[in-house]
């Protein structure tokens, strides 16, 4: 059986499984559509949250970004796990106690204002749509590879599949489907990592192998990796090269963004009790940590494998890989298959029959290149997002592992895209249309408008996904910045302060959202349209602060504006203060009420 058939088999059977479960547990009523009837055990819920959470950004993109940057991209690891601490301590138990279906309902009730609710919905839609763009980028890479078509075709096919998949059922179908998806994606992520860790370090646990010794040379793996990459003029892997302030702000943005993302918070509405909401966050992080503890090992080991593959005769002095070897040697087949997607490319610029891979921006390397007659780096394109999917092929693993990884990558992208589309559609149909515009809408009409909202969101995301503002994980990081600047502060103030009033919260959210959005658009182009940006992240507007790190500042603006405006306006009514008091204690948490 050839690789294509094997991939098709793995992807096809995993899809059949998800769709089967979705049909078996199809959403009946509106309340089931949104919150799965609240009968979900914390461990099950944790697993589903993990699948929902770990998207194309975590699965497909993150290890690649770490691989090519090293320590400096540790922010992704700390940021996307540290947010769960905030979620568990500051939000989840109280929002469950509050007992409504959506995040914006809480904001609307707590800040006793329809405007607050609508502003929250707008914030959710902006952050979620940006997030879906990142997912579509990942979907494009995965479908492109596995159907062996170019990236754009892959993206369009992927969009149709995501749409068909997301309209199928609501949260209930999605909850059990996502448990299945979690199992598929974590298996697909860890199995190749274990194989590779064994090959390189002899340790079956990748997180330990990362700090173990490289079997071939006997020196620690990370020391070896530092040697290999600095020899080619790249930054060392383990040292800190980036700006410290930016790294702190970026990590913080990802953390508070995690705690402000609607599709994750919604998950905590679906557990039976307040105490379960606390445990649920812990279980979610257990399942997430399995991937996040593995990812840095995947990145480091892949970087080592790729570099040694390009310089197969013992580093830079042994000579580069030849063009014939890439064409004929089965070890290099992955390069030919990935070239078809347009995401990997090489060119023998100096015509010596070899492909020299090095950092041609490094002055020392330029001198060396002059001596050796090299005309620049000849591995001309290596899209970071392909690393995880290409990893098993690079390490020469059996073909069933490659098929498994293709299925896992799609599971990751699909599960999150579906969860986000659900959050967007419920925001539009439940909060905007039913909550604000037409309270008398029938259940049928509400479900229909939910599905129309989904369709619109996916069309927009696909269109923008064709020219994404960055690699999948970077685009997703922007979505986190937006959630961090708008939703998280409002939720936190709503629970931990009885003082902040309606006008304060609305001004805070709007200020946070607008400054962050403008900062992002200034660097990534207005509405992410390429070429309309005035600044770049290489040379940002405010000192070292990149657009991906601005969410933390936006959040600070939100808190500050809310605080100042509250001081100038009318006090919060007693009834609302009582509501806050009641949210703070678990006793009396009943079944959720609809409006």
């Amino acid at each position, binding site marked *: 059986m050839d690789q294509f058939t094997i991939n098709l088999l793995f992807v096809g059977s995993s899809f059949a499984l998800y769709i089967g479960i979705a049909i078996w547990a199809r959403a009946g009523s509106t309340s089931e559509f949104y919150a799965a009837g609240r009968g979900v055990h914390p461990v099950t819920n944790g697993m589903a949250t993990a699948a929902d959470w770990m998207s194309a950004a975590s699965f497909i993109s993150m290890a690649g970004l770490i691989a090519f940057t090293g320590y400096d991209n540790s922010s992704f690891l700390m940021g996307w796990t540290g947010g769960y601490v905030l979620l568990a301590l500051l939000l989840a138990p109280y929002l469950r106690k509050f007992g409504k279906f959506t995040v914006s309902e809480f904001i609307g009730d707590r800040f006793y204002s329809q405007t607050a609710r609508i502003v929250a919905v707008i914030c959710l839609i902006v952050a979620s749509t940006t997030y879906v763009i990142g997912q579509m980028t990942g979907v494009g890479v995965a479908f492109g590879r596995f159907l062996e078509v170019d990236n754009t075709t892959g993206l369009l096919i992927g969009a149709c599949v995501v749409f068909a998949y997301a309209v199928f059922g609501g949260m209930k179908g999605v909850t059990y489907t996502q448990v299945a998806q979690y199992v598929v994606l974590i298996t697909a992520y860890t199995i190749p990592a274990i194989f590779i860790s064994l090959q390189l370090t002899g340790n079956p646990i990748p997180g330990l192998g990362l700090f*173990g010794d490289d079997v071939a040379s006997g*020196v620690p793996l990370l020391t070896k990796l530092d040697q290999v990459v600095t020899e080619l003029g790249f930054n060392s892997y383990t040292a800190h090269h980036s700006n410290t302030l930016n790294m*702190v702000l970026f990590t913080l943005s990802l953390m508070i963004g995690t705690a402000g993302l609607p599709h994750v918070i919604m998950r905590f509405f679906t557990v039976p009790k307040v105490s379960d909401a606390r445990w649920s966050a812990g279980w979610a992080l257990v399942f997430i*940590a399995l991937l996040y*503890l593995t990812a840095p090992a995947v990145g480091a080991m892949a970087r080592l494998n790729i570099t040694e593959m390009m310089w197969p005769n013992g580093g830079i002095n042994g000579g580069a890989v030849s063009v014939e070897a890439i064409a004929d040697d089965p070890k290099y087949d992955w390069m030919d298959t990935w070239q078809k997607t347009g995401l990997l490319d090489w060119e023998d610029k100096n015509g010596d029959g070899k492909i020299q891979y090095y950092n041609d921006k490094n002055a020392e390397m330029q001198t060396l290149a002059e001596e050796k007659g090299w005309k620049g780096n000849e591995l001309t394109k290596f899209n970071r997002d392909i690393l995880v999917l290409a990893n098993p092929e690079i390490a020469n693993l059996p073909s069933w592992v490659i098929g498994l990884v293709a299925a896992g990558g799609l599971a990751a992208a699909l599960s999150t895209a579906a969860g986000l589309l659900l959050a967007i559609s419920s925001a539009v149909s439940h909060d905007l249309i039913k909550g604000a515009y037409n309270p008398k809408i029938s259940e049928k009409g509400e479900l229909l408008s939910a599905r129309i909202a989904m369709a619109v969101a996916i069309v927009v995301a696909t269109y923008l996904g064709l020219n994404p503002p960055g690699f999948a994980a970077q685009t997703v990081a922007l979505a986190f910045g937006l959630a961090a600047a708008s939703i998280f502060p409002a939720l936190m103030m709503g629970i931990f302060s009885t003082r902040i009033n309606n006008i304060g919260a609305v001004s805070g959210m709007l200020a946070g959202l607008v400054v962050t959005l403008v900062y992002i658009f200034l660097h990534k182009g207005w509405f992410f349209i390429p070429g309309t940006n005035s600044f770049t992240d290489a040379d940002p507007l405010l000192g070292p602060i990149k657009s991906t790190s601005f969410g933390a500042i936006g959040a600070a603006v939100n808190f500050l504006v809310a605080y100042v405006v509250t001081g100038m306006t009318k006090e919060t009514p007693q009834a609302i203060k009582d509501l806050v008091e009641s949210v703070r204690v678990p*006793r009396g948490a009943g079944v959720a009420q609809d409006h």
Partner: protein
Amino acid sequence: MSENSSNNGYWSANMRIISISLVIWALVSFGFGILLRPLLSGIAVGGTDLGFWFAQQGSILVFLAIIFFYAFRMNKVDREHGVDEE
């Protein structure tokens, strides 16, 4: 941010546990993982230093411990103050 308007020991006990947890949360990630890394550079861990380990492994493990500690502790505090769900 808390005005301590909940005039019971329950909320202040909760705030105390949250504060301790968040100090540890910040210490292992922003502290050991980023800002204090230079101070930890003398402690070698498998080809690099302790700060790198905290940034890529240790902080995640500590986060897990914090959340389970908080859930365990708070569920107990709920009962002690008689505000648990019957």
